[in-house]
């Protein structure tokens, strides 16, 4: 509301653009400022007009343009909301461009997105991510390339940012663009926590025993590395499964049913 009011006085005096104002709002520090040239190129906005209501008006708001037809007073909050939605979706596309991910890299360097809460990740920096590219499903999550897992932001002020404003592809692209990140991860990948009782490990057969070791495990021994290489393209069908008829399980099911299908053929 406030912002739109100020917009009108914008033309006379030199004011911050809508974009920089929006990005400087408390809790919006995950966002980078999208270059106006990127938004002005209609090609970059392909398909967004069908997702965002008041698309034209919202675009004008973002670019600080005077609307051709004055916006009805009743619609002002709706347009403002649409502008935020549109900006978020453009943002998700922008951060996949070279200019965009360099801006994100600056934020990454400054630990704007926080560090991994997992102890053995030793303060690895996090990367914002959405699990869905559609808006309104889930808020932003943070990806740690070291433990290869996703976390909730530590502060609740980020819990109203839609995950789609960062998109599903950004984190993957980002770690591939900056190999330094993977190198840092390699240095940390060597420790795993094991719960002990008075110094004794607990057997995995106990309900309280270690059942999640696999989650953080990395291949280390020669046999493990061999086995790891077999996982190149699919789960290997191993002999350990032959004597156990377990077909309700997801990974094994697909492999086994494929085998069955092949037999039928």
């Amino acid at each position, binding site marked *: 509301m406030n912002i739109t009011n100020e917009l009108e006085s914008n033309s006379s005096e030199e004011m911050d653009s809508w974009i920089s104002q929006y990005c400087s709002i408390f809790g919006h520090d995950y966002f980078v400022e999208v270059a106006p040239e990127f938004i002005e190129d209609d090609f970059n906005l392909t398909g967004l007009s069908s997702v965002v209501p008041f698309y034209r008006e919202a675009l004008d708001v973002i670019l600080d343009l005077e609307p051709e037809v004055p916006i009805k007073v009743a619609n002002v909050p709706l347009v403002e909301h649409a502008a935020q939605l549109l900006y978020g979706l453009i943002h998700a596309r922008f951060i996949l461009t070279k200019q965009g991910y360099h801006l994100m890299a600056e934020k990454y360097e400054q630990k704007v997105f926080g560090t991994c809460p997992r102890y053995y990740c030793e303060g690895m920096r996090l990367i914002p991510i959405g699990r869905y590219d559609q808006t309104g499903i889930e808020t932003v999550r943070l*990806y740690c390339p070291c433990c*290869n897992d996703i976390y909730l932001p530590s502060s609740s002020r980020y819990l109203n940012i839609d995950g789609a404003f960062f998109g599903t592809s950004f984190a993957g692209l980002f770690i591939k663009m900056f190999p330094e990140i993977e190198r840092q991860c390699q240095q940390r990948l060597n420790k795993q*926590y094991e*719960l002990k009782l008075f110094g004794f490990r607990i057997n995995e057969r106990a309900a309280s025993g270690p*059942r999640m070791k*696999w989650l953080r495990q990395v291949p280390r021994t020669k046999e493990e590395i061999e086995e790891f290489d077999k*996982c190149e393209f699919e*789960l290997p069908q191993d002999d*350990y499964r032959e004597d156990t008829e377990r077909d*309700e399980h997801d990974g094994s099911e697909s492999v086994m049913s494929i085998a069955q299908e092949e037999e039928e053929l």
Partner: protein
Amino acid sequence: MASAEYMSDSGSEYTEYWIDWFLGSRGNEYFCDVDVEYITDRFNLTGLNQYVDRISLLVDIITDRTQISENESEQTRARLEDNAKFLYALIHARYIITQRGLNKMMEKYKNADFGYCPRVFCKLTPLLPVGLSDTPKVASVKLYCPNCEDIYNPKSSRHSSLDGAFFGTSFPAMFFQAFPELIPSHSVDIYTPKIFGFQIHDYAKLTRWRLLQKDKLIARLDEQGIPHDRDTRGGFVEPRKDPDDSSKKGRR
């Protein structure tokens, strides 16, 4: 007894019990109150005199039997106060693995006083404090998630300076030995980064290998006839049918 412990002192900060004051101070939210009977039993303090001097005086301060004398110098009083806190915390580590202590910590666990696991797939599992060493001044407190069985740094900086030895290395294991019904079932969801919907190969490979390790564990459990479905404690919650699986099938 309670009236005897109430001090008729003029100082307003001494009108409450020392333990209550300690538990109410900022940053001490993880501690539970230790029974006075437990503290006064000298057997429970065996070996603690290597960490603090004048242990009897400190016990008296903690249990409100005596005040830190006003005649002492500012420095001595501060040191006594710090030592009393330190001793209380060390006793706390021993107390919370007793039955009574575990019960008190269970209340705190149920209130999620130690926070929730930040991992998305753990779906807000409450955490438990754990130390990496039983010797004080080695490592700060960490938080153990029984769902992913990993340890995390406390969210708030006022907790990250707490010593891990104030909770001990055995506490979470003891906790789940005492309350097996509180062991959560484990979520098997695993995240693989994708670019434009395609999984990144090296990460997907690692994911596959990890899932293979999980399958092997399950096979071992099956062999021994140990149940591990979602309704058993410590079992696995298999994800809902993944659309990726059906597409994999369709491709062949």
